[in-house]
Each structure stands twice: as structure tokens, then as C-alpha cells.
């Protein structure tokens, strides 16, 4: 009899508990959305674990960043936003901000000051590319090549991509206009600061596509971040573009015969947004998390686990050694002065306007 009572009481409790869960969020729980894989693991170690230890808030990971824009819109239309903090690239943050799906952040009052006493707005500087965007890392799209397939003259600049005589063989490039069009114009002799003005004109676009035409038959177009590393490892391509962190892991962790170029690397940003439509309580918790996870030390900590540069100026001196490989990480950061000699900053404003138009033209060009 006693056992029955106990059983009933337990099941009642379980039921209530599960109903509280079903209600969306327990008082002390938040859902953080990111990209998964090694990147999420670095965030778990650098941000989530210390935050959970500090506050007792339980963090649930969701690996939906690739579809974040569409899912957030759907959640918003349904009036049931289940995410608290979302990791997106800057271009998506701009779109989400435009669509009213991400809340605006005031950097100086809602983000931590830098360790060196600088205000957040100065510490992040130009990287605050949207009112809703809280930068986290700087990554770059750059080119890796097979050291055993390029002969005695390894490439030193980006235009090796277009030089099929010196470097015969396939290349892999991303299956979207971003980055490719800029590199094409750069290698067609257009000065760096005129590229976006040029690309805004019909002639400039035609010029860029004409340059890409020269390697169209030698190119494998990738759409998943893991493609180029796999193609390089299999010797399927002689060189290809991908994110610098992927190349770091291919070269330093997997020890493949691959080297990378830092020339004309295209800087891009990844960071957080907080969705609109959260209850005040959840919003406050999300803001508290953001305040913690984007302070100087935390951003520097992430670089121990993955080769992406911290978005704060004040974090750069704190970047140390890789947590398991034990190598100095600073020389592998895209922002390291030795690597950042010739860089390219993605023009967000321009791409926000031209993305749809250029994408249509790019797809039409691909299918010709």
C-alpha cells in the first residue's frame, strides 16, 4: 500500500515537472543555438561551462544556426520563440535585425567593458556592424593548397586561384557570390578600395564573372564547410577556399600535406543575437549570459579551443596556447599582424543590398 502511494506521488511529481518543461522553460534554463561540431565544443568549454558553474543556469544546446533565420521567423510568426540566444554570422544578424526578429543592443550599457577599461563600443569598434549584433569571433575565408601538388613554387598570393597554368588541377570555391566576386575583381587588377563600387555596376559584375569564367571548368563548388578540407585531404583539388579554422584543424590536428595562404583573406564576423518576443525574465537572463560570455577574458578563452580570433581588441593579448595541442594560438589568428598584412573586410552594407540580386545572377551564371 505504502509503495503504491509512493509510486503515485512520484508519478504525480514527474507529471508536474514534465508539464513545467512543456511550458517552454524551467525557471533556470536557457536554449543557446549555435553551429555544432568543434565550434560548439569551444563555446561549451569557454562560455557555457563557466557560466553554468557561476549561476546554476542550465544551458541547452541547439545546433540550428544554419537555419536560424528561417526558424526564427517561423517562431516569431507562431508567437512562440523557444530560443534565448542565437549564434549567427553578421550578414544573418543584419537580416534578422531588419526583419525585427532580433533585439537591439546598446553596447555600452548592455555589454561588459574591456579589461583595459575601454568601453564596449570602442573595444568592439567597427565590428558592431548591426544594432542587434554582438560580435564574438573574427574568422576569415582563405585558401588552402596541397603542398605536394603545387611543384617547387608554392603560391603566395590569392591570384594563384586563377593561375591554372602554374597550378593546374581543380580548385574548390564556395557556391555563392560572396568572396568569389571580390577575389575575381582583385585578380583582374581592380584596386581593393574600388571593388565594391565596381561590383555595383553592370560592367563590374560582367568583369568579375568573366574572370571567374576562366576557371569555371576547373572548379568544384562547395556548399558545406567540411567540403574543401575533405577535397584537399583526398587530393581531389589542388587548392580551395574555406574557413581558416577548418584549415588549422586540417594542418595542425590532422597533419595533412596542406598549407594555407593569408593573402587577401576575407574577414567575416560571427556573434550573438537575442531574439525579440522573449518574456522580460528570459530576456534578462539572455542579456546576463551575453554580458558574461563576451567579456575580454571569455573571448580570449575561446581561442584556446579553435583558431578564430576574439572580436575584442582587449582580448588579443590574452590569447594563449591551444588546450590540447599546446601550440601558441596567436600566430594562427586571422587578426595576427603577420597574417593580416593584406586583408579584406566584407562590406556588410553592400552585401545586404546586393545579396539577392547577385545570388540570382551567380546561380544563372553557374547553370549556363
Amino acid at each position, binding site marked *: 500500500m505504502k509503495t503504491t502511494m509512493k509510486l503515485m506521488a512520484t508519478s504525480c511529481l514527474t507529471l508536474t515537472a514534465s508539464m513545467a518543461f512543456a511550458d517552454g522553460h524551467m525557471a533556470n534554463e536557457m536554449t543557446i543555438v549555435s553551429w555544432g561540431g568543434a565550434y560548439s565544443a569551444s563555446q561549451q568549454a569557454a562560455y557555457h561551462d563557466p557560466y553554468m558553474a557561476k549561476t546554476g543556469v542550465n544551458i541547452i544546446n541547439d545546433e540550428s544556426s544554419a*537555419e536560424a*533565420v528561417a526558424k526564427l*521567423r517561423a517562431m516569431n510568426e507562431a508567437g512562440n520563440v523557444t530560443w534565448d540566444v542565437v549564434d549567427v554570422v553578421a550578414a544573418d544578424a543584419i537580416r534578422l535585425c*531588419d*526583419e525585427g526578429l532580433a533585439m537591439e543592443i546598446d553596447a555600452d550599457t548592455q555589454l561588459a567593458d574591456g579589461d583595459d577599461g575601454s568601453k564596449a563600443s570602442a573595444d568592439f569598434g567597427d565590428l558592431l556592424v548591426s544594432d542587434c549584433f554582438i560580435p564574438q569571433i573574427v574568422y576569415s575565408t582563405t585558401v588552402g593548397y596541397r603542398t605536394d601538388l603545387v611543384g617547387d613554387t608554392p603560391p603566395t598570393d590569392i591570384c594563384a586561384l586563377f593561375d591554372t597554368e602554374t597550378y593546374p588541377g581543380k580548385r574548390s570555391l564556395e557556391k555563392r557570390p560572396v568572396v568569389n566576386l571580390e577575389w575575381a575583381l582583385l585578380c583582374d587588377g581592380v584596386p581593393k578600395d574600388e571593388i565594391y563600387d565596381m561590383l555595383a555596376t553592370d560592367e563590374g559584375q560582367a568583369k568579375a564573372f568573366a574572370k571567374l569564367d576562366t576557371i569555371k571548368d576547373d572548379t568544384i563548388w562547395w*556548399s558545406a564547410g567540411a567540403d574543401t578540407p575533405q577535397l584537399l585531404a583526398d587530393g581531389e583539388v589542388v587548392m580551395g577556399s574555406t574557413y581558416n579554422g577548418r584549415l588549422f584543424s586540417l594542418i595542425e590536428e590532422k597533419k595533412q600535406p596542406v598549407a594555407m595562404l593569408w593573402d587577401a583573406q576575407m574577414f567575416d564576423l560571427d556573434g550573438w543575437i537575442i531574439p525579440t518576443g522573449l518574456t522580460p525574465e528570459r530576456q534578462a537572463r539572455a542579456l546576463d549570459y551575453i554580458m558574461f560570455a563576451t567579456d575580454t577574458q571569455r573571448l580570449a578563452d575561446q581561442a584556446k579551443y579553435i583558431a578564430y580570433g576574439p572580436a575584442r581588441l582587449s582580448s588579443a593579448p590574452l590569447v594563449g596556447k591551444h588546450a590540447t595541442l599546446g601550440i601558441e594560438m596567436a600566430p594562427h589568428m586571422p587578426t595576427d599582424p603577420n597574417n593580416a598584412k593584406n586583408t579584406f573586410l566584407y562590406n556588410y552594407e553592400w552585401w545586404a543590398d546586393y545579396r539577392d*540580386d547577385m*545570388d*540570382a*545572377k551567380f546561380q544563372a551564371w553557374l547553370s549556363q
Partner: protein
Amino acid sequence: MSELVMAADGRPLKASLNRALRRQKLRALALIAPLLIFILVSFVMPIADMLFRSVENEIVGDTLPRTTQALKTWDPSADQAPGEEVFDALYTDMALAVEYKSHTRLGSRLNYEKTGIASMFRKSGRRVSKFKTDVYKDTFVAADAAYSDAGQWERWMSDAEIRANLPVTTDAYDGWAKMLVEAEGDVPGEEQPWNFVYAALYQDAVAGAELPIAVDVSAIEPVSISAQFAAVDDSWLDPDVWRTIKTYAPKYTNGYFLNSVDLMKGAEGIEQRPDNEKIYVVLFVRTMIMSLSIMGMCVLLGYPIAWLLANLKDRTANLLMILVLLPFWTSLLVRTSAWKVLLQQQGVINDLLVWIGLVADDNRLQLINNQTGTIIAMTHILLPFMILPLYSVMKTIPPSYLRAAKSLGATNWTAFWRVYFPQSVPGIGAGCILVFILAIGYYITPELVGGTKGVFISNRIAYHISSSLNWGLAAALGTILLVIVMALYWAYDKIVGIDNVKLGG
């Protein structure tokens, strides 16, 4: 004359029977109601809602109601931007839209039609509250302090006569008051109206309306709103921008559908898109042709296997069946990636061919990142959907028919073609429909192995849903795809007959 037959309780038998039947029907309906409601709510309604987006276009009129109204008199074939009255209306609309944070959303919407509008709206939204229109407010307030009194404004704006005298002001004030309550949570009676309300009051005054307290406005040097918009972005003076706004002002649009067949709304009606932007028709045709090829490959490969399965001993057949089903139990991505490893130029198949000597080392076959790759990978993935219905139909064909045909003198081929094959046609039909319909909706596999020429229309739909957020265009493309499928289904029904399709015994 037929006499009315009565039931035992004295009522007419017919009515009594009807009652009983009706009750039965209701009970049957109640039994299926949960499923019916579930399907309606979770399947039919979302699809209808999604399809409706292909024509829905309320955002322009909702965000810029005054501007679209003012644009009605503007001639879109003019080669200059509309006059000051449209910009005055835009000033009010924009100031309000910024508070609702809807201006950037409208900017993104119009940017699908004309590149550059997104940043125009974003930039103008930031600056519109700082437009230099203080002169209006200052003049009115200097003439009489009552004009700065929030309570006085509220009293004026609830007086029917004053409202009738000041149509523009009333409209601006109402919009402002509504915004204050909805977006800011403030009370209009406690807030001094914003600059654009005074600008509206000035317009009324210039038009000769009787003001609540007379003010001499002739001394005011009017501020050019259009110049201030142009200072933010000179594209505001581009008539093309205004043409776009005017074209997409109505609540419903066929623009998405035109776009999805490579047409567009030009200055003089519907015109072709420039050649370097045409993609969708090519993709639709390619999707159809490749899906049909995949279907054909599935029949060619699946038929012998199904025949083998149906004619082997049960033990062996079961073992083979597991091999057929095995791919079903493996993740789609894993299968697709496996094909990459097999088919790429440094892959297993090419290595083998080079080793045998069939292919030269410097001339390896291009088997992936093109249409071949898509067809191979998708045929493999969809093959079970062909084999299973074929197998279950073949299982029901008695082997004695073939023996009878042969004993009557038919050759092997005649026996197969005249006796066996016609009986297996329902299975082919069912398999073909399944494979074809699944194939035209596939996008992950073509994206990964299709390269440039092996992608489907569904890849573009996925892009517009998840990346560009152009759900209207995605809905239009989806609707067209749905209509094509239904047309093909209808044609199939006419030619073969849908009763002739069997998924099993």
C-alpha cells in the same frame, strides 16, 4: 398510389431508416474526426497559408499607407520622382514605421524587386527623426503656446469640426497617437506631438484650412522634405524606386509568380528578365527531365531485382530484402557522402578503372558534381521505393501462368512480355509515381553531389525559405511545382488509370 410504410413506433419507415443511417454516419465521422482535424490543422492549413504567401503583399500598403495613397496620382512613366506632397506623406509614414521597426522589413521586401532599397530604408530610418523640420513647430508654438500643450492637442483632435477642417493633421495625429499607445506604451494626452504632426498642420494651413488658433504661416520658409531624404540617399530621387513602390503597393501581387517564370513587371507591363538573371524555367525543365531519368533508371534496375526477390526461395529472398532495405536504415547524408568517396576523381571507382587500365591516370572520369552524380546518387537512394511496390505486386502473380504460356508454345520472351509483364504494370505505375514525386522534391542530395548543372528547383526553394527569406517567391515556386505534379498525376490517370496502381496484393 403507394402507401406509406410505417415502422413499429408509428413513424414512416423511410424517415426512421434515414435517422438510423444518419446516426451511423455521424458516429463514423466522430471516429475519424481526430485524424481529420489533425490533418486539417497540421497539414492542409499550413500548406494553404504558405501558398497564399505567393500572392500576398500587404506589407507595402500597411507600412506606407499615406505614401501609397499620395502616389496614386503620380504617373509612373514620368522620368522624375514624385512631388513634394508624396515626400511629405513619406515623412509621416517613415517616422511612424521607424517606431514600429517595420521600415527595414519593408526595405528587405522591396529589395527583392530593386537592389539598394534595403539600405535606403535602413539609413533613412536612422535619420528621419533628425530631419530639420523644427521651423513648423517653433512657429506654431511661438504664435500661441497652446500649440505645445499635449492636453490641448488631444481636445482639438477629439472635436469633430476641427478634425474635418484639418484632414492631414488629423491623419498624422491619429497615426502618432496610435503608435504612442501601441509601440511606446505612452498616453497621447501627456506627450507633445512630434515634428511631423506640426509639418502636417502646416500643410493644412497652407491649403487654407481654418486653424484652431489662427497663425500666420506665410512667413515660414517651407522645408523641402524631398531634399532631406535625398541627402540621406540620392536614390530617393530615382523614379525607378518610386515605380517599384507604386507597382507593389496593391494588397496582392502576381510579381512572385512572374519572377518564378523569369518574367518581371517593367515600366510597360510584363517583360522578360535579362538573360543573366534567368534561372527558374531552366531549373524547372531540368528538374522534370532529371526526375524522369531517375525514375527510368529505377525501373531498369529495380525490375530485375524485384523479379528475383519474388521468385527466389523465401529464405534467400528475405536475406536479399534486407540488403534492399539496408539503405533505408542509413542516414541520407551518410549515403550521399559515401557516393562522394566512391565517385570523385581520386575516388574508389576511378582508382579501380585506372588500375585495370580502362582509364588513363591523367584523364579520370568526371562522375560527380554534375548531372551524372545526381542521377547515380538519387537512383540509389530512391531504388527501394521502386522495388517494394514491384515486389509486392509480383508476389501475387502465380508462376503457373508463365508455365501455362510456355506449355502452349510461347518462347521465354513472349511468355514474359505477353503474360508476366502486363500483370506487373500496376507495380511499375505505383513505383514510378512514388519515385518521381520524391525525386522532384529532393534538394540535399543534388546540393551535395550536383555541382552546377545537377541542382533542382527545390534547391532554390530551400534557399529562398532559409537564406534569403523571400518566402513569397519560395511559395510561388512551390505552387508551380505542386501544379505540375498534379497535372502529371492527372495525365497519368487519363492515360494509365489510377485504379491500375497497386502498392501490393
